[in-house]
C-alpha cells in the first residue's frame, strides 16, 4: 500500500461487484468517476466512485432547511454544530479490477472487500498503471448503478485521462474500445463520446 494514498472513507456495505463507503469527513466526497482502492491482505481492489450522497445518519430523521436567517451556507453549520454529527456523506463504488503480486487484473476479485476496509484515493501513478490496459472498460460499461451508466463511463474516462501523459491519446484509445463494446448500441456510444473531450 502506497503510504501517500489519501484515506477518505470506510466500507459499510460490500458485495463482489461493488461496495458502499462512508466518508470520514462530511461532504468530503470523491468526484464522480474517481478511482479508489481498498486493501485485502496483499491485494488491492480497485473501484470507481459513483452515486454519492449526503443524508441523515438515521433513516427516520430528515434534514430540514435551516438557513433562512443565515447569510452564508457556512453560517448554517456554525449555528448548528450538531449537524456534522447527524449527517453522513457516502458513495457507491463499482469494482473495476484488483491487483495481486503488484500486477493488475481487470476482472472481479475472488472475494468482496471486507466491511470496514479503509478506502483510499488512487494516486496518479496507480491510475496510469491500472489503465494501461483498457480491459477495465468491460466492467465499467456493464455496471448497473442508479445514475445513467453513460455518465459514469464518461466521468471515469475523463478522470483517468488526466493522469496520463497524453490525455487525448488515452481518451481516443478508450473511445475506440467503447466503439467495440457498443457495436450494437450507437445511441449509447454517442452519448458517452459527446461527454469526452475528444
Amino acid at each position: 500500500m502506497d503510504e501517500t494514498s489519501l484515506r477518505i472513507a470506510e466500507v459499510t456495505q460490500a458485495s463482489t461487484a461493488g461496495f458502499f463507503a462512508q466518508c470520514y469527513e462530511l461532504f468530503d466526497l470523491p468526484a464522480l468517476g474517481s478511482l479508489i482502492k481498498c486493501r485485502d491482505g496483499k491485494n488491492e481492489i480497485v473501484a470507481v466512485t459513483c452515486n454519492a450522497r449526503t443524508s441523515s445518519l438515521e433513516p427516520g430523521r430528515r434534514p430540514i432547511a435551516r438557513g433562512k436567517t443565515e447569510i452564508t451556507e457556512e453560517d448554517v453549520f456554525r449555528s448548528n454544530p450538531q449537524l456534522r454529527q447527524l449527517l453522513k456523506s457516502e458513495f457507491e463504488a463499482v469494482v473495476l479490477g484488483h491487483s495481486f503480486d503488484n500486477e493488475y487484473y481487470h476482472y472481479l476479485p475472488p472475494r468482496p472487500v471486507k466491511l470496514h476496509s479503509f478506502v483510499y484515493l488512487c494516486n496518479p501513478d496507480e491510475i496510469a498503471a491500472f489503465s494501461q490496459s483498457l480491459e477495465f472498460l468491460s466492467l465499467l460499461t456493464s455496471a448497473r448503478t442508479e445514475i445513467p451508466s453513460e455518465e459514469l463511463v464518461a466521468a471515469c474516462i475523463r478522470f483517468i485521462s488526466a493522469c496520463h501523459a497524453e490525455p487525448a491519446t488515452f481518451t481516443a484509445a478508450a473511445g475506440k474500445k467503447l466503439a467495440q463494446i457498443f457495436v450494437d448500441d450507437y445511441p449509447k456510444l454517442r452519448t458517452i463520446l459527446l461527454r469526452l473531450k475528444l
Partner: protein
Amino acid sequence: MSLDLNKVAGSIASMASDLVLQGLKRVDALNAAIDKFENPGDLTTLKKRLAQAKTSWLLAEISGSLNQRFEPSELPPDYIVIATDGSQIDIDRHHPARCCLVNIGRVYLHYGQNPDCFLESEPTLFSSTEELVLKPEQGNPGREISIEGPLLGIKRTVEEFRYLSHLAGKLPAGLPALALVDGSLIMWGLMSKDLPDFVIDAMLDKGVLKYISEIEKLNFQNQLALASYISFPRSTDVINSLRITVCPHQVPDCDKFCTSIDSGERPCDILAGVVDRELFWACLKDNQRSDVFISQSKISKTRYGCNQIYFFYIKAGIEIARVEIPEWVACRPELLHLTHSLILDQCRKGQGYPVALSEAHEMAVVSGADRQNFFYLVDEYFTASNLSTSSSAKSVSKNNRWI
C-alpha cells in the same frame, strides 16, 4: 382482536363537543385573568394575602413584580449549551433476569467562532441487589424498596443530573454556558406519602440536589446557568395566585369559607379552567419572558434549600414554555438573562424546542425494538452461561399468539 376504533369514535366526537363548550366558557375566564394580571391592585397587599392564604391549590409566590415583561439580552459571541435526557428499560417481572437499564443521552454544543459538538449516549445496567434496592441505613427501621416502575423513573432523573454535572465539570473556563434538562426541576414523584425518608434522602439530597449544587459551585470559574424546560406546561400557579385577587375574604382560606360551595360557584371560579400558558400567550410578546415566580411546592420549600425552585414563562416562537431555575440562577441577573437568551436561541435553532434537549432525547431514546434486542442479548449470555431463560407462561402466551 385489535382496537376497534369504530366503537370509540362516538365517544371521541362527544369529547370534542364538550371541549368546544368548555373553550367558549374559558374565553370569559381568560379575559378575567388577563384583567387581573394587568390590574392586580396594590402589589404589597397582594403579596401579603398570598403569604397568608390557605388554599387547596398551589400558588406562585411573586418575587418581583407580577406583570413585568423582559426582552432577551444579546447573545454572547461564544457560548456552550449542555443537556442530558434519559430513558429506561424497566425490570420485566416475566423475565428470569432481574435487571433494568438506564440510557442517558448527553449533548455538548459550542456556538461561536469555533463551533464544536458531541452527542453521546451512556447505557448503564443495574442488576445487583445494591443497585436494585434502596434500604434504610444500618440501625434504622424501614423496609427495602425496589427500584422499579416510577422509582426507576426518579433514579433515571438522578442519573440525568449526575451526567449533567459531569459534563459541566468539563466545560472550558471563561465561556458562558447553560445546562439544560427536560421537564421539571421539582421532583414531584418524591412527594408521595408512601415513600420513606431514606428514599427521598437517596434520590434528592444525595442525588439531584447534590448534583445541582455541584453545578452551582462551577460558577466560581464560569458563568454557568442551570434550567429545566417544560414544553406545553399545564401548571396553574400564576392563575391560582390571581384567584386571590378576586377572593372576597381578607385572608383567603378555602377550607374555612368555601367547602360548602359547589365547585364552579366560588367567587374565584371566574378564573377556573385557565392555565398559565394561556394567560402568558395573551400577555407576552414574541421572545419576552415573564417575571420570576417562586414555586410554593412543599418539596421545593422544605428540602431544596438554596436550590429552591423559581420559574418564569417564555414566549419562544410557537408556544409558551415554563422554565424552572434554582434560586442561585434566579437571584443573579447575569445568569437569569443568559438563561432567557440562550433558551430562546435554542428554540429558534430547534424549530420551537431547544435543540440540545431534542438531540439529548434522540441519543437517549430506547425504542421497542431496542428493548427487545436488549432482552435477546440477555438471553444469549444466559444461555452461554447455562442459566435458565424460561419466562412466565403469560409472557410465552403473549409472544406466541396462537389461535
